[in-house]
C-alpha cells in the first residue's frame, strides 16, 4: 500500500515536470516573436528589448529552461504583462472562486447522479428509469455553455430568482455566495451528473446479479439494506474510477461556467489572458490547472486503493 502510494506520488511529480517542460517549449514554439505578439508591432525597440530582458528571453535556451524550473519550484510564475501583477497573486485570488464552484457542482452532481442511477437500476425499465435515461442523454448532448445561457434566461431574467453574473465571497454571507454559484454549478456539473447516473446504473445492475446479493435476499434482509449495504458498496468501485476522469470534465465545465457567468476564477483568467496574449499568465494558469488535474488523479488513485481490497492487500 505504502509503496503503491509512493509510486503514484512519484509518477504525479513526473507528470508535473513533463507538463512544465511542455509548457516551456510550447511557449517558445509560438510562431513569430512572442514579445512582438504581446506588445504589438508599433512598440519601440527599447520596450521590446526591456520586456525580452525582463522575461529572460535574451538568455541561452538551457539557462531559460533551468531558470523556469527553478522559479516555478519556488512558486514564482512571473508578472502579468497587462497589469504587472504577480501571476501567483492573480491565481491566488482566482482559485477560491474556482474551487468553490467546482466543489459545489461536484456535490450537486453526486447528489443528483447517484440516486438517479440507483433508482434507474432498482426499477429498471420503469417510467422513472426512462425519464432519467432521457435526461442523462440530453445532459450529455447539451453544450454546457448553452445550458448556462438557458439558466440565465429562465432563472435570472424571467423569474429573477438568482443573480445572472458575478461572485460574492463566502465572508459576505452564505446566501450571497451560494446564490451566485447555484446556476454556474448546475452548468458545470450536468455532464458529470449524467455520467455518474449512467455509471451507477450499469454498475449496480451488474452487482445485483451476483450471488452474494441473492444470499442477502435469501437471508430475509430488507431490500433497502440489500441495495444500500451489500450491492451499492461494490457497485461504487467502478463509479469511483470514472470519477477521476469525470472530475476533469467538471473542471473543464467550470472554465466554461466561469466565462458564461463572469466569475473571475482560474478558467476566466485563462481565457482572458489568452485573448490578451498575456503569456506569463497563460503559462501560469495552464500550470495551475494541470496541477489540479494531476492532484485529483492522484487523490482518486489513492482513494481507489483504499476502497478496493484487491489493491489494498497487495504488498
Amino acid at each position, binding site marked *: 500500500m505504502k509503496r503503491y502510494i509512493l509510486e503514484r506520488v512519484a509518477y504525479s511529480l513526473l507528470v508535473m515536470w513533463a507538463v512544465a517542460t511542455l509548457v516551456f517549449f510550447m511557449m517558445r514554439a509560438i510562431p513569430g516573436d512572442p514579445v512582438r505578439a504581446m506588445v504589438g508591432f508599433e512598440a519601440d525597440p527599447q520596450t521590446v528589448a526591456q520586456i525580452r530582458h525582463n522575461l529572460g528571453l535574451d538568455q541561452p535556451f538551457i539557462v531559460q529552461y533551468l531558470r523556469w524550473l527553478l522559479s516555478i519550484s519556488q512558486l514564482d510564475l512571473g508578472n502579468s504583462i497587462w497589469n504587472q501583477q504577480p501571476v501567483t497573486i492573480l491565481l491566488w485570488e482566482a482559485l477560491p472562486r474556482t474551487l468553490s464552484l467546482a466543489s459545489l457542482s461536484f456535490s450537486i452532481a453526486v447528489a443528483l447522479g447517484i440516486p438517479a442511477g440507483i433508482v434507474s437500476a432498482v426499477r429498471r425499465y420503469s417510467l422513472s428509469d426512462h425519464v432519467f435515461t432521457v435526461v442523462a442523454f*440530453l445532459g450529455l448532448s447539451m*453544450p454546457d455553455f448553452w445550458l448556462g445561457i*438557458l439558466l440565465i*434566461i429562465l432563472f435570472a431574467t424571467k423569474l429573477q430568482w438568482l443573480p445572472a453574473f458575478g461572485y460574492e465571497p463566502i465572508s459576505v454571507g452564505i446566501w450571497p455566495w451560494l446564490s451566485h454559484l447555484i446556476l454556474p454549478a448546475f452548468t458545470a456539473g450536468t455532464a458529470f451528473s449524467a455520467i455518474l447516473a449512467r455509471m451507477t446504473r450499469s454498475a449496480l445492475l451488474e452487482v445485483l446479479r451476483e450471488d452474494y446479493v441473492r444470499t442477502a435476499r435469501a437471508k430475509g434482509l430488507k431490500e433497502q439494506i440489500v441495495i444500500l449495504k451489500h450491492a451499492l458498496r461494490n457497485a461504487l468501485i467502478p463509479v469511483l474510477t470514472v470519477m477521476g476522469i469525470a472530475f476533469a*470534465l467538471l473542471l473543464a465545465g467550470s*472554465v466554461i461556467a466561469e*466565462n458564461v457567468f463572469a466569475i473571475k476564477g482560474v478558467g476566466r483568467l485563462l481565457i482572458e489572458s489568452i485573448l490578451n496574449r498575456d503569456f506569463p499568465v497563460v503559462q501560469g494558469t495552464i500550470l495551475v490547472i494541470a496541477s489540479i488535474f494531476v492532484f485529483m488523479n492522484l487523490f482518486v488513485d489513492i482513494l481507489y486503493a483504499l476502497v478496493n481490497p484487491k489493491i489494498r492487500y497487495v504488498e
Partner: protein
Amino acid sequence: MGTPRAFGFEEGFDGLAEARLRAPARRGWGTVPRRLLRDRRAILGLTILGGVVLTAVFAPWIAPYDPSTQGPEMLLPPSLQHPLGTDDLGRDLLSRIIFGSRISLFVGITTVLLAAALGVSLGLVAGFYGRWVDMLVMRYIDLQWAFPNFIIAVGLVAIFGTGLANVIVAITLAFLDDFARITRGMVLAIREEEYVAAARAVGASDRRILLRHILPNTLSPVIVQGTVSISYAILGEAALSFLGLGVKPTTPTWGLILNDARPFFTTAWWLGVFPGLAIMLVVLAINFVGDGLRDLMDVKEYQEARR
C-alpha cells in the same frame, strides 16, 4: 521482418491465403448498415444528420436571407418574416444558423478524420513494434490522457492563436490520444491472433500484415469512437467560438452566434435559445447513431467520460 521472396508466384499465393484468413473479419461489416436501420434511435439520428448535411450543403438556396446582410429590423422576436427573429445588427437568425451548420460540420468531420488518421497510425506502430516505440507513444498518450480534451484544445489555441485552421489543429491534437489508445489496445490483442501468425508464416511483410490484417480488425471501436468524437468536436468548436477563441468573427458559427448574443440574452431570448438548440440537435443525432453502432459492434462503453 518478413522472409525474402524467392518466387514470383508468392505474391498471388500470399494474397489468396490472406483473403481466406481475412474472411471472418470481413463478414461482420457488410451487414452493419442494414442492421443499423433496424435501430429506431439510429434511424432518427441518421435522418436528423442527413437533414443537417443537406442544409449545410445547400445553405445558399435554403436560407431565406444572406447571413451577413445587416438590416434596420434589429432584435426582432420570431415572426413570419424572420422565423427565428433577428440579431442586434438586424441579421436573420435562421439564415445565420443555417450557414453556421457548415463550419460546425466541417470542423467536426475534418478534425475527427485527421485525429483518427494520426491516432490510428500512432497506435498501430506502437502496438505492433512495441519496445521503445511503444513506450514513447504510451508516455505521451498517458500524459495527454490526464487532461480533458477541451482543456488541451484551449491550451493549444493559446499557443497557435485563434482562427479556423488553428482550431482544427487544436481539436485534432486534443482528440488524437483517444484513437491511439484504442488502436494500440486492439493491436496488442490482434497481434497474437493465429491469422497474423499465419500471414507471417506465408511471408507477408510487416506493412502488409499491419495494413491488410491488423488495421481492418481494429476498425470497429475506432469507428464508434470516431462517431462519438464528431459530436465532441462539434461541441468543442462551439465552446471555443463561444469563448472567442474560435473562427474569425465574420463567419457565422453556432458558438460565435451565441458569443455575439451575450449582451442580449436578457432582452432577446431567441438569440440565446435557437443556436444552442441547433448544436444540441446535431450532437444528439450523432450520439443516437454512435449508440446504435456501439450496440451493433459490441464495443465496450468505456469512452463516455471523455469530452
